[in-house]
């Protein structure tokens, strides 16, 4: 496709205040009548608001794409990504503003668009090639390349309706990859076929990157991060952020995570259910649980008999009464080792109005080598069936043991190998007066 050249000499594609609206009205006679009546009513009474019949998929969008860039477009479903691709491809035209581009645009939006299932692979290469804008002579010239890329030499004369979905996609990608264009528009077409074919696709993609400007719409953030030179984050039809891949992807992930947390909080069950790792009514919320050493430095690997400091970071969302926290330790296999709470320990809690932290210290933690999980919760008046918030597996830590002892916890002990049977009564009292001191064992 050729269209008006952009003003900026270096730009190959330019969006100039582009908006795209879709008419929500149906074309039926009934809805036409309804609209006509509304119009008459409005004429009699001008204060009646005019119904906004447009749904704006893209709003007032301006950006430029320069030669050789690989631009990633990310955003949630319905953000307007597909509409932007369609505007670039010229499949649809803007309601307002202008789309300017320089050079031949190839839209590889769907693999195998227009494949005729009754025709053979050979015939569909020709058909699909011409759909993508290749001329007859170009198709003839590239036919062998396409066939060998697809690896489907044996199936060329089989109707594609007998192809597996992987073969179908391979053939589609093979044709699409051989379209010579200055600007290539594409969506998630890189993830097709088996591992070997995917490697081939990636190689081809890199090859295309060196020869063309690529616009790449995807939900695969890793692919975006690895292959793009610039990323646009689209939100509600507008550009939220336009910058380096790492920066945009991180910001996008943060935003998604925040929204996900919010959803989880609103949708979280109030009581424990099978398989849930978190439940509660949410008036007080445990935002995170962190582990620290005796000096307050955050860490997650401890030695046996070291001090373990657990911090519970909370946020207050609503009214609460008589709050208290609990902490439990579990092994990786789910064995409950220890649990306590502020109610049984008789500690009163005074919470900050907005956000805050409570600390709990295990002095000389007697755990042996292994992976352990902390469960943390907050509730009212020691009622743990309907807590404010309870998080199973809120934080994980490791313990390393220098001595060769085995098991879960250190039980204080003393050996005596030189006693006679008659002296047995005295040695048992000696064990109490001279225990193996934890401090000396740990160091």
């Amino acid at each position: 496709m050729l269209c008006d050249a952009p003003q900026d000499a270096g730009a190959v594609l330019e969006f100039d205040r582009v908006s795209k609206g879709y008419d929500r009205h149906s074309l039926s006679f009934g809805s036409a009548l309804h609209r006509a009546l509304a119009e008459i009513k409005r004429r009699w009474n001008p204060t009646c608001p005019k119904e906004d019949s447009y749904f704006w998929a893209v709003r007032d969008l301006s950006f430029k794409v320069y030669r050789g860039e690989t631009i990633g477009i990310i955003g949630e479903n319905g953000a307007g990504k597909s509409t932007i691709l369609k505007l670039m491809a010229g499949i649809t035209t803007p309601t307002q503003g202008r789309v300017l581009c320089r050079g031949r645009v190839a839209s590889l939006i769907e693999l195998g668009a227009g494949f005729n299932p009754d025709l053979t692979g050979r015939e569909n290469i020709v058909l699909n090639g011409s759909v993508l804008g290749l001329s007859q002579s170009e198709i003839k010239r590239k036919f062998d390349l396409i066939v060998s890329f697809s690896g489907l030499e044996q199936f060329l004369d089989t109707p594609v309706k007998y192809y597996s979905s992987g073969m179908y996609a391979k053939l589609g990608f093979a044709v699409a990859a051989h379209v010579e264009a200055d600007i290539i528009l594409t969506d998630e077409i890189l993830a097709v076929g088996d591992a070997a074919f995917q490697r081939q696709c990636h190689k081809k993609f890199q090859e295309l990157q060196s020869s063309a400007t690529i616009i790449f719409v995807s939900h695969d953030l890793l692919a975006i991060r690895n292959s793009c030179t610039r990323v646009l984050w689209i939100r509600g039809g507008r550009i939220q952020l336009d910058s380096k891949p790492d920066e945009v992807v991180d910001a996008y992930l943060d935003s998604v995570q925040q929204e996900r947390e919010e959803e989880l909080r609103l949708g979280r069950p109030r009581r424990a259910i099978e398989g849930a790792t978190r439940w509660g009514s949410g008036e007080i919320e445990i935002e995170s649980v962190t582990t620290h050493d005796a000096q307050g430095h955050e860490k997650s690997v401890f030695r046996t008999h070291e001090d373990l400091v657990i911090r519970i970071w909370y946020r207050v969302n609503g009214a609460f009464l008589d709050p208290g926290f609990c902490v439990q330790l579990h092994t990786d296999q789910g064995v409950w080792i220890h649990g306590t709470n502020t109610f049984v320990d008789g500690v009163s809690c005074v919470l900050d109005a907005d956000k805050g932290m409570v600390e709990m210290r295990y002095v000389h933690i007697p755990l042996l080598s292994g992976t352990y999980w902390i469960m943390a919760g907050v509730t009212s008046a020691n009622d743990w069936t309907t807590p404010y918030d309870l998080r199973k597996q809120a934080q994980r830590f490791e313990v390393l043991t220098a001595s060769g002892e085995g098991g879960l916890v250190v039980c204080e002990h003393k050996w005596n190998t030189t006693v006679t049977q008659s002296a047995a009564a005295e040695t048992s009292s000696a064990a109490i007066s001279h225990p193996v001191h934890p401090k000396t064992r740990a160091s």
Partner: protein
Amino acid sequence: MLEHLRRLIAYRGLLWNLALAELKARHRQTALGMLWAIAQPLSMMVVTTIVFSMFVRVSEEAVPYAIVAYVGLWTWLLFANSLTASVASIVANMNLVTKANFPREVIPLSKVVVTGFDFLIGLVFLAALMALYRVPLTLSVIVIPGLLLIQVAIVVGMMLICSALYVLHRDLGALLPLGLQVLMLISPVLYPVSFVPEQLRSVYLLNPMAALIEAYRTALLYGQFPNVGSLAGALLAAVLLFGMGYYYFKSVERRFADVM
């Protein structure tokens, strides 16, 4: 307009490949394959010949009724089949229209290539019929390509209007068969123009399809050059329909991807 035509020419390969794909698919999927091109006009000819020469008794001059009916059906079916095939073609190829950028008229135009192919096979069969009935060929057949050109222009113009209109208003899907039936009855498809009362004939021939079918018969079967007056009307209709059709199609084309 010129820009549009240039783009269309650039995509002639697609036009050809779409038509070829349909012909091949049809050929492979059906037992009769290519024979279907003549099976339709032939079977209609046989039935109407039985009805009209045995029950109704058409008194025909020099040329047997069967071949008169065949010429009528042969030309009519190019028109009717093209329209029927193309009206829903844009909607049927929605995955192409919303995924790739090419001049959309390629889709309905590929249908006229397919029906045009049937028309050519029908021509071979017509030659055989004429030999069988010993209808002499005269110099007047040289006007046939001209007639065909006028007819194709009318067909294409109508196809462009109908296929574009159908995207926006699906009512046309129900309306078109009705319109085609009415038009067939008021055109001399199954009867010669001589059936029409003398005083009504000038009005009757204002219908471009009536003028065209009559012209085909005059040139092929009666060995005379067709009436220039009624053909001029058909030519004017052809130019108008083609121009309006193409203009209308191009002006609503950009909305196709949004509506579907």
